[in-house]
């Protein structure tokens, strides 16, 4: 058994939505842990609760019931400002649709989390440049997202997720909008980041993508169906 410390401990966590007079249990009493340097894929059919889980893990949303501990802190009890701080310091997001600001060049996009962290402009520049180099875009720092390919755009987004050295990287269908070859490039980057010690959780519905990870969690109807190595 692994001796790596826990980063995330979730117990009996539920998220309910009411649609009209109908109660939707998007997550139903889930127990789940992640340790440092985990590299996990969350899979499941559409509507099984993957995005809901990801939003709660990323502190974008709060659970209806249950406990969510991130680095020993109970996130369910945090106020808005504390949640913003956790998102800023502990979590790096990668989205299916990239979510870069088209008017800003790569460097400016990547430095955004550092602005909200109160990092000085000089240090922001240096760290953003380094993050872009890590994803192989050191020569594209002054390009705007519109001038890049889909794969390059997602790499910029990964650099942005990395730049503030988060405890976990959360990626919701990061290859969902990319072709097979480009998807493999992106998974190579995640692989390298994992080898470097990062904790990575990604959502995917493609088995070939999930096979790059070391742990696959399958959801169905808001419950964990299985949790195992690929």
């Amino acid at each position: 058994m692994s001796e790596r410390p826990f980063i995330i401990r979730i117990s009996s966590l539920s998220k309910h939505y009411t649609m009209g007079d109908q109660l939707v249990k998007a997550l139903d009493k889930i127990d789940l842990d992640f340790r440092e340097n985990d590299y996990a894929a969350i899979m499941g059919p559409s509507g099984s609760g993957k995005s809901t889980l990801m939003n709660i893990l990323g502190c974008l949303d709060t659970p209806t019931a249950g406990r969510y501990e991130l680095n020993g802190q109970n996130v369910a009890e945090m106020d808005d400002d504390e949640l913003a701080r956790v998102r800023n310091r502990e979590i790096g997001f990668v989205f299916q649709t990239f979510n870069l600001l088209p008017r800003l060049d790569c460097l400016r996009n990547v430095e955004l989390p550092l602005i909200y962290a109160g990092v000085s402009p000089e240090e922001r520049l240096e760290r953003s440049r380094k993050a872009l180099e890590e994803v192989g875009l050191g020569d594209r720092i002054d390009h705007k997202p519109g001038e890049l390919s889909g794969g390059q755009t997602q790499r910029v987004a990964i650099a942005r997720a990395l730049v503030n050295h988060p405890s976990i990287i959360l990626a919701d269908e990061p290859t969902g909008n990319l072709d097979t070859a480009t998807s493999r490039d992106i998974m190579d980057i995640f692989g390298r980041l994992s080898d470097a010690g990062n904790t990575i959780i990604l959502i995917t519905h493609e088995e070939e993508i999930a096979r790059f990870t070391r742990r696959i969690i399958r959801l169905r109807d808001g419950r964990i169906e299985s949790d195992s190595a690929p």
Partner: protein
Amino acid sequence: MNSSLQQFRYETGESLNIAVYQIKANKIRSFLTALGVIIGIVAITMMGTAINGIDLGFEKSLSMIGYDVVYVQKGSWSTMGQWWRYRNRPDIETRYAAEINRIIEGNPGSELIVAVPQMSTIQASARYRDREILQIFAMGTSHDYPLTASGDLSAGRFFTAQESAAGDAVCVIGDDIASGLFPDGRATGKSVRLKNHNVRVVGVFKKQGKFLGLFSFDNQLIMPLGAFTKVYGKTPMVTIRVKIRDEKRVPEAKEELTGLMRRIRRLPPGKADDFGINEQQAFKSQLDPIKNGIAVAGIFITGMSLFVGAIGIMNITFVSVKERTREIGLRKALGARRRTILMQFLIESVMICLVGGIIGLATALSITVLIQNLLPDFPVSFSPMLVLASLLISVATGIISGLAPAISASRLDPAVSLRYE
């Protein structure tokens, strides 16, 4: 504490960048949005400029009426327009000046320095050869007149005590008369014709300018009292000008002068004054209704356009929040706090208003310069206070109109916003 201050600085810097970008990216929309503010600022600055100008024009044009001079007249300026109340009063006589002077001389502690008689007519004209100036203001007075008026001479001199006592046919003329009758030559030494008398010009006043087109001292002709009555006979328009010791003690001086006049008129105690004692302040307050009218109109127009402008800005900012829902969600996901988003949109609306305010100020300034060039007599004056007030009003408008949309942006749910198409 220090690091959160730094964070505040960096976040504000980012908000400023975003605001500048948004305004540049939506130039026409921003301009239309700011239009209400622009009109409001133009209205309020033009109002202030006009009011300043009236005050300034008054100071400038009526500088011949000093603050340290009071006027004994039949009526009172502060109740101008009610001439019927004074109809039955006895006329003021020029000899009162001499009587007042005699009493002052015997009283070293007097608030009064010297009294000068003035008899005048507006039904006068002056000729020189084939030129004629109609509707001049002719006045007979004593050599002490310059003590009670501050008009400088551009040529020649004022008449002397001897000329005054003898009633010599000499005169000092205003600039309009000088340039009208002697367009290409010196006026002094020449004789102008008043009715069928020749009167020699000994001095010319510097140009004073018009005030609101109402008053001008540039068409006056001043001569010894004796000469005046020889030409025009005795006219009823008589004033005793009295110079006082201290312009801060006008009430005391008026009090003393009232006593002197009652003595001269031999009014028994209990009988009301049958003369008026006037001062510049009373005359100046005649303009208060005009100034108030301008202020009310200006404030009304300003208020209306700022109100319309604020609603427009609120609307546009709401649209802007809607358009950028995804961006707001992203920024929150990356660590922006509520107050950061709130600030971002407030700064944006404040900046639109500030730009509008500055455009408004520039417009008002251009109009002011234009008026000054086209109508030099029209009083306008720009002041730094107006600039400051305009900028403050612009900022306040921005905050008021941006607050509601900014709050709604700051409360957006990040998870929902990120899904927004």
